[in-house]
C-alpha cells in the first residue's frame, strides 16, 4: 500500500519534495485540499489471535470525513485504530485504503497516541522534523516546515524544549504537529486528549478543528467522551459488545454552545442509551 498511493493529482509524487511548502507560517495548509483517503473495513475481525476484540466490523470512512468512535473502555477502540494504522493485521475480513488492501504502517496514515509518544531525547522541533527526515526532506526544509507547524499549534516559543519540560497539553499539541507535518492523508487519533484537564481539552478540540480545516485529511478520532465525539465528528460510530453498534450523522454546524438544539440532544441521548449508560 503504499506510499505510491500518495500520487494524487496536484500533489507532487517525489518523496524528496513537498508540494506547496515554504517557510511561511501558513504554508502547511497550502495545496492540500482533496488529500483525504477512503478507509473501509468489511466483515473485519480485529484483535490479537485468540482474543479478537471486534468482529463483523463494516465501516466506510469517506475522504476528508471526521469519524469519531465512542465506546466504553476495553471495547476495542484502540484495536480498531491500530489496525487502521497498520500496526495490527486483521484476523479476518478486508481493510482497504482507496480500494487497495492495507499492508502495514505507512506515512500517509499518521497515528496520534493517547500516551506521550514524543521521543524524549529530541526537542519538540526535532520530534516534528522526524517524519520529514524519514521522507528524506532536506535539513533546511525540515527545519522550516517543523517551525511552521509548531507555530501553527502555538508552540513556536517552545520549539527548542525537551518534551518533559513542557506541559501535557503542549506535548499533545507537538504530537499533532508531528503527525500533520508528515502531510498524512488520514489522521488516526487514539484518545489524544484523554489525559488532559477539561479546559485544556476544550482548547485542544478547537485547535484540532482549526488545524485540520484545509488539510483535507480523513480523520478517525477515538474517544470515550460522548460530547467530544459529537463536537468533533461528522459522524459518530458506536462500539459496543464486540462490534459496531451504530453509526450516526451529527447535525452541523459545529457549535459548542448548541446544547439545547433538540436534534443534538436527541442524538446525545440516543448515543448514551446505545452505550448502555
Amino acid at each position, binding site marked *: 500500500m503504499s506510499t505510491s498511493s500518495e500520487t494524487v493529482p496536484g500533489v507532487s509524487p517525489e518523496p524528496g519534495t513537498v508540494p506547496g511548502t515554504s517557510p511561511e507560517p501558513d504554508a502547511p495548509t497550502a495545496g492540500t485540499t482533496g488529500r483525504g483517503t477512503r478507509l473501509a473495513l468489511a466483515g473485519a475481525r480485529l484483535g490479537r489471535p485468540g482474543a479478537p476484540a471486534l468482529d463483523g466490523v463494516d465501516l466506510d470512512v469517506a475522504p476528508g470525513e471526521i469519524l469519531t468512535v465512542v465506546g466504553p473502555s476495553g471495547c476495542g477502540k484502540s484495536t480498531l485504530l491500530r489496525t487502521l494504522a497498520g500496526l495490527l493485521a486483521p484476523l479476518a475480513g478486508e481493510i482497504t485504503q482507496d480500494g487497495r488492501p492495507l499492508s502495514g504502517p505507512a506515512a500517509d496514515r499518521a497515528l496520534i497516541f493517547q500516551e506521550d509518544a514524543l521521543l524524549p531525547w529530541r526537542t519538540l522541533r526535532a520530534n516534528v522534523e522526524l517524519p520529514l527526515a524519514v521522507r528524506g526532506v532536506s535539513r533546511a526544509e525540515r527545519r522550516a516546515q517543523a517551525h511552521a507547524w509548531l507555530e501553527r499549534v502555538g508552540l513556536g516559543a517552545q520549539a527548542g524544549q525537551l518534551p518533559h519540560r513542557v*506541559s501535557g497539553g503542549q506535548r499533545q499539541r507537538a504530537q499533532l504537529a508531528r503527525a500533520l507535518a508528515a502531510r498524512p492523508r488520514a489522521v488516526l487519533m487514539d484518545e489524544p486528549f484523554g489525559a488532559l484537564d477539561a479546559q485544556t481539552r476544550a482548547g485542544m478540540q478547537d485547535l484540532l478543528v482549526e488545524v485540520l480545516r484545509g488539510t483535507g485529511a480523513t480523520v478517525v478520532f477515538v474517544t470515550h467522551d460522548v460530547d467530544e465525539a459529537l463536537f468533533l465528528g461528522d459522524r459518530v460510530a458506536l462500539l459496543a459488545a464486540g462490534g459496531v453498534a451504530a453509526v450516526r450523522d451529527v447535525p452541523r454546524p459545529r457549535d459548542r454552545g448548541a446544547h439545547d438544539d433538540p436534534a443534538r440532544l436527541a442524538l446525545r441521548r440516543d448515543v448514551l442509551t446505545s452505550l448502555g449508560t
Partner: protein
Amino acid sequence: MRRYALRLLSLAGALGLWQALTSLDVDLWLRFSQFPTVTDVARAFAERLTGPDYWTDLTDSLTRILTGFLLAAVLGVATGVLVARSRLAEDLLGPVLEVIRPVPAIALVPVAILLFPSNEQGIVFITCTAAFFPVLVSTRHAVRALTPVWEEAVLTMGGGRWRILGSVVLPGALPGVFGGLSVGIGVSWICVISAEMISGQYGVGYRTWQDYTVVDYPGVFVGMATIGVLGWLTSTAVELLGRRLTRWLPRTAYDPAARAPRPARPAGSGQPAPPAPAVRPAGARSEEARDEHLV
C-alpha cells in the same frame, strides 16, 4: 566548594591514618610494622616518575585497556541490540553467551595463550571479554525495556528497520548502555592488571608484580596508587560522557541541601516555636526548581 573540601579532607584523613599507623609501627592484631609508610611510598613514587620504565608501563596499560574496552563497547552494544531485537539471534547466540559469561575473564588466560600469537593481543582479548558481558547485558535489558509507542510512532511515519535502530533503539537504550559501560571499565582494569601480572611485559600490573617478587613493597604501593588513579580517571571519563549524552533524561530538580533550615527552637523554653518567617528565599527557590520538570 564545601563538598570538594570535604572530599579532599577524606583523602587526607586516610593518608594521615596510614602514615600514623605505619610510622608508629602499630602492631595490634593487624601488623603495620612491615608496612611502608606514606613517605616511603612518596619517595619511591618520585624516583619512578623520573625513571625510564614508569611512563612506558603507564602507556602500555592504558593502550591495552582502551583498546580492549572500546572493542568491548562496540561488540557489546552490537550484540546486545541484535540479541534483544532478533529472536533468531537470541536463539543462535544466547546459549553460547550464557555459558561463557560465568567464566571469569582472567580464567581465559590459557585460551588467550593458545589463541593469540602475542601476549599483547591476549591481554587485550581478556580485557575485552571482561568488559563485553556487562555492556552486552545492560544493552539487552535497555533495548527490551524501550517504550513500545516510540517504535510504533516511527513505524507509522513510514520508518523502516534502520530508521528505528538509529532514531529509537540506540538513543533510547543509551542510559542503560552507559550503566554497562561504567561497570565494564571497572572490570576491565581488574582484568588488564591481572593479565599483565600473569603474562605481561611492561604495564602497571607487570611492574607491580615484579616489585612484589623482589620484595620492593614501596614499589608495589606505587603500582597500586597508579592503578587507583588511572581507574578513577577512566571511570570518571565514562561517567561524564554518559551524562553528557543522556542530558535529555528527566531528572528531579529536588535538592535536599537547598531545604530551608528548620526554625530554631529556643532551648529549654516551653514556648511553641515562633512561626516560620514568611519569606524563605532558599526554600521558595528549591520548591520552584523541584516543580520545574512537572510544569
